[in-house]
């Protein structure tokens, strides 16, 4: 089982400054080609956990981490790890779609160009591929050189997804990617995730329990920095083992 784990999180405890830990002794395995949903109430540490998987929390001053996170069996916090390389391998989409201040094409090719890709034909190919995979190609193919700011919120979020796909990552982290989207755009993003999981490992913080139940293959419930339980989604959402999970899922919480 362990050999095929994509991410292996072992005894992970994480502190911001001096307060109580934001995450407490987390043990979790993330398998390839499935959608893992990490859900829980506000401030339970979901974003923190996600940002630890591509070392984005390195940018926050004054943090402390215990335990290990292995990607394909390698400790990503080991000394000498190339963080930039890691972030290309583990892409991330945020709650707020932030198009970079450039064109649609410029946004998609930004990552590959940073990685040193200069070949125009290859970049064009990547652009089309990624935009198609993010279900945005048909809407923008005639205006690739317009500013990305001109897109609607839903389109911007799919652009951010395409931008990550263009890096050809192995894992995609999504932190509440549909929070600002209308139901139609949400459906489009969810649909593309279902297609994408064939090629990628997807870890997502959902907008709601309903969304979690809709798209998850496997789900993990976080509460105040603790992993209460995790299981195959079909099991967890129908027969939760822990009382607190059940309360949260059925809305009898707090």
């Amino acid at each position, binding site marked *: 089982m362990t050999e095929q784990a994509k991410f292996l999180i072992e005894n992970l405890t994480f502190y911001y400054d001096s307060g109580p830990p934001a995450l407490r002794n987390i043990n979790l395995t993330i398998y390839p080609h499935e959608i893992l949903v990490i859900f829980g109430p506000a401030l339970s540490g979901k974003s923190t956990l996600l940002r630890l998987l591509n070392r984005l929390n390195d940018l926050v001053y004054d943090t402390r981490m215990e335990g290990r996170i292995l990607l394909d069996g390698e400790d990503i916090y080991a000394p000498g790890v190339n963080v*930039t390389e890691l*972030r*290309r391998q583990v892409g991330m989409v945020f709650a707020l779609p932030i198009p970079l*201040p450039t064109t649609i094409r410029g946004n998609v090719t930004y990552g590959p160009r940073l990685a040193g890709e200069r070949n125009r034909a290859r970049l064009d190919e990547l652009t089309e591929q990624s935009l198609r995979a993010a279900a945005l190609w048909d809407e923008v193919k005639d205006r690739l050189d317009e500013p990305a*700011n001109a897109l609607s919120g839903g389109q911007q979020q799919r652009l*951010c997804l395409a931008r990550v796909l263009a890096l050809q990552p192995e894992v995609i982290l999504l932190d509440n990617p549909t929070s600002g989207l209308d139901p139609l755009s949400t459906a489009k993003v969810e649909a593309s995730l279902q297609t994408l999981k064939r090629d990628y490992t997807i870890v997502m913080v959902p907008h709601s329990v309903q969304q979690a139940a809709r798209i998850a293959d496997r789900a993990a419930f976080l509460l105040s920095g603790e992993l209460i339980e995790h299981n195959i989604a079909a099991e967890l959402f129908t027969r939760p083992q822990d009382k607190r999970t059940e309360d949260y899922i059925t809305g009898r919480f707090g």
Partner: protein
Amino acid sequence: MTEDRRNEQQRHPWGEFFIESAIKTCGFSAIIFVVLIFSFLFREGAPAFWSVSPSNLFGTRWYPTFGLYGTLPLILGSLLVTVGAVIIALPLGVATAIFVGEVAPHWLREVLKPLIEVLAGIPSVVLGFLGMVALSPLVRQYLHMPTGLTAFTGAVLLAYMSLPTIVSVAEDAIDAVPKEYRDAAYALGATHWQTIWRVVLPAAKSGVIVAVMLGIGRAIGETMTVMMVTGNAARMPLEWNALFMPVRTMTATIAAEMGEVAQGSTHYHVLFAVGIILFVITFIINAVASLVIIRGGPKRGGRLLG
């Protein structure tokens, strides 16, 4: 809520009226002052344009005692010193803003920011004095020039004067770039430097341009410092090493000669004409800056600059 406000107004109808008219008066008088300054400048300066022939007025020789009013050396002198100042201040200012905003650790930032603001408060006479006694001997010695009072000396001091403006305005613009932009860039595998150069700076572009424009505005209008350190020789700065020769700027000419000129004489009107030319140049620079900002994306400019 509305009820309360109506009561309030009924209780103080006169107070309300008084404050409103006071504010209106202030607003309108600002406009009136601008118009007055304008018309005064044009009334005093315009005669120069018909009493002095254009070929003389835009000629290359400025010898008012002999009736030669060529303003070209003064215009070029101002431009040379200003451009020199910008070339020095722009990279320094933006780099300092980046350092303060993006690189320096938190405690150092808290020390640097007020220090930079203090720099802006140094009177220009003091800077000019420093330039005369400290900088110009160095220029003479190390560049092997006959004199240290050169356009370059002026440019360095003006650059120094415009730095605080450039740094603090540019740093504000950089600071206003949302944290999410940086996260997004890092998550795409950008390094710290790539994030600054390709995401933060472009996003702060309009603010940075405004910073530089404000810096130029300060430099081109500055009188005291340049008068003290540029040597004030009204000559055409056309040689390749003109930057390291004495020049005379428009502002220094007006300041130096206005006191001794007979009111109503041709010389007097020409000095005002120089003022008009200076005003037109400044106006063009500001107009170009505004255009750049509008073109650069009204949304972003709006958000970053409030």
